[in-house]
């Protein structure tokens, strides 16, 4: 419900304000509305795809965050913290530099990068006694910093005119929407979220310890593989289409757990919806606060997310590691 309201409000406001009744009328598919041709173009060609992308990105990141937290038994696990997003970013940049012509190159390489980074972090973190949350965070930091330097390296060898748009993209930018990226993001969001929800019951047990989950009948190897792949797909799709939008995967699942408890059968779908809402709001702010100029949406989510997370930590709801 909230998502629908946010969706409508977000489609009306922006650098060019549209009338609420006109937009509502047009959105419900009627032909004779009070919008001018120019306004219709703004609504359907610019604003709507961008809002849809924001929603898809939010869904991807929040659902992936919830899944990583459950799978890694770490309330602080998050695509960015783990280096998964940076992996996807490196993949995307490699695709842009080497196979710039292929539209599908970006998402495929981003997915590859995300999965490689996930695998690397997981292997680094895994000691004899399994992956402890502390080791995991450390491994995430190592992989993140390593990949950051790779990003810096790629940015440096690129020509100067593209650097600014890249810096913007790295911070999370939804302005470069294309219809194929939108399609990829939607398919990835649907496939990833369904795969996660189907494994949510197993995740509920793995969240409390892999050994116990094994004893209770969970095929932990299979579940781990599916969840890692689904989460990487979600992160890959979101990074390929919008760069690094931070904190969504951390804050949204926490807020959802506050109201729904920890059952992943509720947390994952609820985080998917709440994540979409959150990123649409953040992107609306990003394109309106200093209109007609724009902020990267990642800057807004971090500005909202970081203090909120500190607050959650202080309240002790984010079971401190």
């Amino acid at each position, binding site marked *: 419900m909230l998502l629908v309201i946010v969706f409508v409000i977000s489609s009306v406001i922006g650098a060019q304000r549209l009338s609420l009744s006109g937009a509502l009328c047009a959105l419900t598919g009627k032909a004779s509305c009070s919008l001018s041709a120019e306004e219709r173009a703004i609504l359907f060609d610019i604003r709507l795809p961008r809002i849809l992308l924001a929603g898809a990105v939010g869904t991807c990141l929040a659902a992936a965050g919830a899944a990583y*937290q*459950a799978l890694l*038994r*770490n*309330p602080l696990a998050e695509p960015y913290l783990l280096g998964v997003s940076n992996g996807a970013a490196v993949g995307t940049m490699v695709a842009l530099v080497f196979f710039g012509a292929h539209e599908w190159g970006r998402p495929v390489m981003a997915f590859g990068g995300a999965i490689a980074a996930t695998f690397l972090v997981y292997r680094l973190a895994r000691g004899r006694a399994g992956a402890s*949350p502390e080791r995991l965070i450390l491994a995430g930091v190592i992989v993140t910093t390593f990949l950051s330097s790779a990003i810096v390296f790629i940015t440096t060898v690129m020509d100067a005119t593209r650097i600014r748009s890249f810096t913007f993209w790295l911070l999370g930018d939804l302005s470069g929407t294309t219809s194929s990226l939108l399609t990829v993001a939607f398919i990835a969001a649907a496939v990833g979220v369904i795969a996660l929800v189907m494994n*949510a*019951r*197993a995740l*509920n*047990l793995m*969240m*409390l*310890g892999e*050994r*116990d989950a*094994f*004893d*209770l*009948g*969970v*095929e932990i190897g299979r579940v781990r593989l599916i969840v890692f792949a689904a989460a990487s797909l979600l992160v890959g799709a979101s990074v390929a289409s919008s760069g690094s939008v931070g904190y969504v995967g951390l804050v949204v699942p926490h807020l959802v*757990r506050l109201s729904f*408890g*920890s*059952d992943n*059968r509720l947390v994952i779908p609820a985080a998917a919806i709440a994540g979409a809402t959150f990123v649409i709001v953040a992107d609306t702010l990003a394109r309106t606060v200093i209109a007609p100029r724009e902020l990267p949406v990642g800057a807004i989510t971090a500005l909202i997310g970081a203090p909120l997370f500190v607050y959650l930590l202080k309240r002790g*709801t984010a*079971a401190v*590691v």
Partner: protein
Amino acid sequence: MLEAKNITIRYDARFAVQGVSLRVEPGKVISIVGPNGAGKSTLLRALNGNVKSTAGEVILDERLLRSHTRRAIAQRIAVVAQEADVRFPVTVFEFVLGGRYAGANLTAWGWESGRDIELAQNAIAETELAGFESRLMNELSGGERQRAVLARALATEAKIFLLDEPTANLDLAHQATMLRLIRSRCDKSDSAAVVVTHDVNLAAEFSNEVMLMKDGRSVAFGSPREILTEQLLKQVFGLQVLVDAHPVSGAPRVTPVHEMRSGPRA
């Protein structure tokens, strides 16, 4: 129902368990007793496949354990391990309902049926946790948490229980209650239990058979009366003990005799 044949478990060059055999039959409670590092928990873990054995076989219902699916094994064997570490706000009820993972009759939407919920509630009542259903696991005391772990195992409806130090965090009253619960399950419903414990006296009281383990080997196996003798316990623990009969139950009662140079300390 469950049999371990000549199990050997090796970590690199070290043998954790060496050539141990064990037969679990309906109605029996078997205790495994021995010093720290004797391989008791490792052996227990091998019985449901959580630890892979280097040599030897585990047989469940006349078939190799590894030929069963994880889900099928979990429907037959429940494990009570030392308390779980819970980092997420999970309620006692959700935790216990987790025991229904393998055996649940799910609704079309993937939720547990009324029967699953009833089984979880019964297990909560049996472990004296009624009224705790909506409390969070990480807000419970160690003993309450341990009871929730036992409740989860009872909720599985499995017939074979593997318990690793089930009474470690419990007070005197709850230690007896928990073991009596396991005992009566085994007596009434053709269940069986293997209990790893440091408490020799509880083992004497509640088990049909006791295995003494040292350095990964089974030193002796038999009824509590045959096994819990001064000589065998000295051999395994390197400690002088006094064994007499429990004044009420008549089971062997073990009292360590400490070397006291100048009488008991004040």
